[in-house]
């Protein structure tokens, strides 16, 4: 038993490096709590739609989301989408123009986006995007919450990717007196190094929610991060649901096998 305890402690130590791998200079991130936390957490559908609105009206002016297609938002999307109907998805897609072709004359042409199109990026290429932002490239947001801090589906005691993005969105402050700010950078308490090239994107009432929710900065940040978490792993709800069934099955199986083992071994001395 004592050795078993030792081994368990050892196993814990083995997992510890994952915790230490975080950037030690980064400040403690805010932990606002998420609807998708925990083994039974799901995405709050209303927050998802509000978050998508924030992305569409604010973030998407600079940030692409190349991995997402418009019909991911609809009922056939991974994980059941955001709760939009097929017609709503068509309308959302049709607001954007995409270059298609060549047609039978050999010409490229513009047409409204269809649900099967991927999210139309704000700039035709990274170079154009950099040129518009003083050389800085706004990262693609498809997987942003999975690639920052602890990401998604890491150990619960670590600050997660959603916590990080929320921290960035709400962490803009006036620089402390004496802090030398480089050109075109802003002070952000939750950004490693504190100097971020992104201007504060959110402000109160930068969007108008149709469901009457008051659009404060923390509310907008919380909504858009919920949307980004869905975008990064739309199958998360299915994963957790499947996990519960698999674990129940395995627990019963282990119980039966333990009984079988006891019975078969009963005559061994």
């Amino acid at each position, binding site marked *: 038993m004592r050795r078993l305890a030792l081994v368990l402690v050892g196993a814990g130590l*083995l997992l510890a490096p994952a915790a230490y791998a975080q950037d030690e200079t980064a400040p403690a991130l805010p932990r606002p709590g998420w609807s998708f936390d925990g083994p039974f957490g799901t995405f709050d559908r209303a927050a998802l739609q509000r978050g998508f609105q924030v992305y569409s009206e604010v973030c998407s002016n600079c940030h692409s989301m190349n991995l997402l297609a418009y019909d991911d938002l609809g009922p056939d999307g991974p994980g059941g989408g955001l709760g939009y109907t097929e017609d709503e998805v068509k309308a959302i897609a049709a607001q954007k123009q995409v270059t298609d072709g060549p047609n039978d004359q050999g010409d490229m042409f513009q047409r409204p986006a269809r649900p099967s199109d991927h999210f139309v990026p704000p700039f035709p290429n990274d170079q154009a995007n950099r040129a518009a932002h003083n050389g800085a490239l706004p990262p693609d947001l498809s997987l942003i919450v999975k690639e920052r801090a602890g990401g998604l589906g*890491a150990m619960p005691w670590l600050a997660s990717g959603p916590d990080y993005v929320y921290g960035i969105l709400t962490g803009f402050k006036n620089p402390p007196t004496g802090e030398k700010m480089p050109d075109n950078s802003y002070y952000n308490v939750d950004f490693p190094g504190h100097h971020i090239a992104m201007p504060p994107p959110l402000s109160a009432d930068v969007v108008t929610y149709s469901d009457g929710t008051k659009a404060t900065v923390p509310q907008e940040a919380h909504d858009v991060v919920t949307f980004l978490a869905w975008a990064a792993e739309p199958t998360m709800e299915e994963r957790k649901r499947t996990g519960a069934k698999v674990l129940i099955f395995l627990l019963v199986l282990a119980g039966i096998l333990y009984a*079988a083992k006891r019975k078969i071994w009963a005559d061994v001395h």
Partner: protein
Amino acid sequence: MAAPQTQSKLVRWIDRRLPIFTFLDHELNEYPTPKNLNYWWNFGSLAGIMLTIMIVTGIFLAMEYTPNTNLAFDSVERIMRAVNYGWLIRYIHMNGASFFFIVTYIHIFRGLYYGSYKEPRELLWMLGVVILLCMMATAFMGYVLPWGQMSYWGATVITNLFSAIPLVGNDIVTWLWGGFSVDNPTLNRFYALHYLLPFVILGVVGLHLMALHTHGSNNPLGIDRKGPQDSIPFHPYYTVKDMFGLAVFLIVFAVFVFYFPNALADPQNYIRANPLQTPPEIVPEWYFLPFYAMLRSVPDILFIKAKLAGVIAMFGSIGLLFILPWLDTSPVRSARFRPIYKWVFWLLVIDVLALGMVGAHRPEGMWIVIGRVGTLYYFFHFLILFPLIGIFERPLPLPTSISAAVTKGGGKLAGASAPMEKP
């Protein structure tokens, strides 16, 4: 040698021409196994099952994956989003690598504790070390395939190690890459080898099992079986025990796959590979951390540059295991009867865990010191302590037979008195 009498005519017809049923009967029903194996002996079969899981999930992933630097990352994300149960198969494969290493490392340390590498099981042990090396190569190349930042930069750092070889090092690196940097040819060949190596492992596992079945399993007492009273047939006793162990293992595995699927991986590998942007820290997967620590810890030694010395230490740490059976001079197998080795064994466990922590940190301040002491101890443990303890230690008296020791324990279950057994 005949197939079991109760079999049908068809079975007997086949068995007379191709004795697979006789073979299975011989290796499962008749195969005598010590009756006192504890739960640490489960990890061998668990490793075999993990290998199978990795091969099966890997083949399904290969059906959807595209080994091209422009498409690899997106094809993996397509598996996660658009392929039916693609997320499940990928998360099993990704976490499976970690769990394969967990069970294999436990399996190795069990062998070290109970002296399973000693006469007549030296080749069995050496084949195991070959499997470990193949696993490491496979895992390393598999990690490159999603073409994230850590894939790319990990591949760059590790392949660059070969440049430490004097004279021909740089040429070897160019040859490995198939170009002048890690690029599409590298990805393609890594994919081909990542598909090939698991089947090489499978072959070596076959030899490992053949060697195992020649003399049978070692056991917690480390003494030979003296007769039928010491052994039980593998089936049903150990099949059911292995199955129960498997169910418990799968529970832990499932918790990670379904609830913490990214806990054991570096989040930065969800960033697409970018050859123009070096990540702030390049860290290998956790199961390589102790070796990575050794690589970085070794300083310049006389005329050998630190880089080459580090590479020698890293590969030497595993190469050492090949000659382990001859470094250990003690005639007693099980640490249970070796009053000094029993404690020294745990020093190695602590040392390897400490090196793992070192590997996860930037080589600064105290981590450099711990890394150097840890690396030094690792080699001291095997090269100096192993031979010396065997000479100076006075082993406790061994029990006369397995059966005598087991009955004396008074437990109803075989091995119930074993101190290392799970509750």
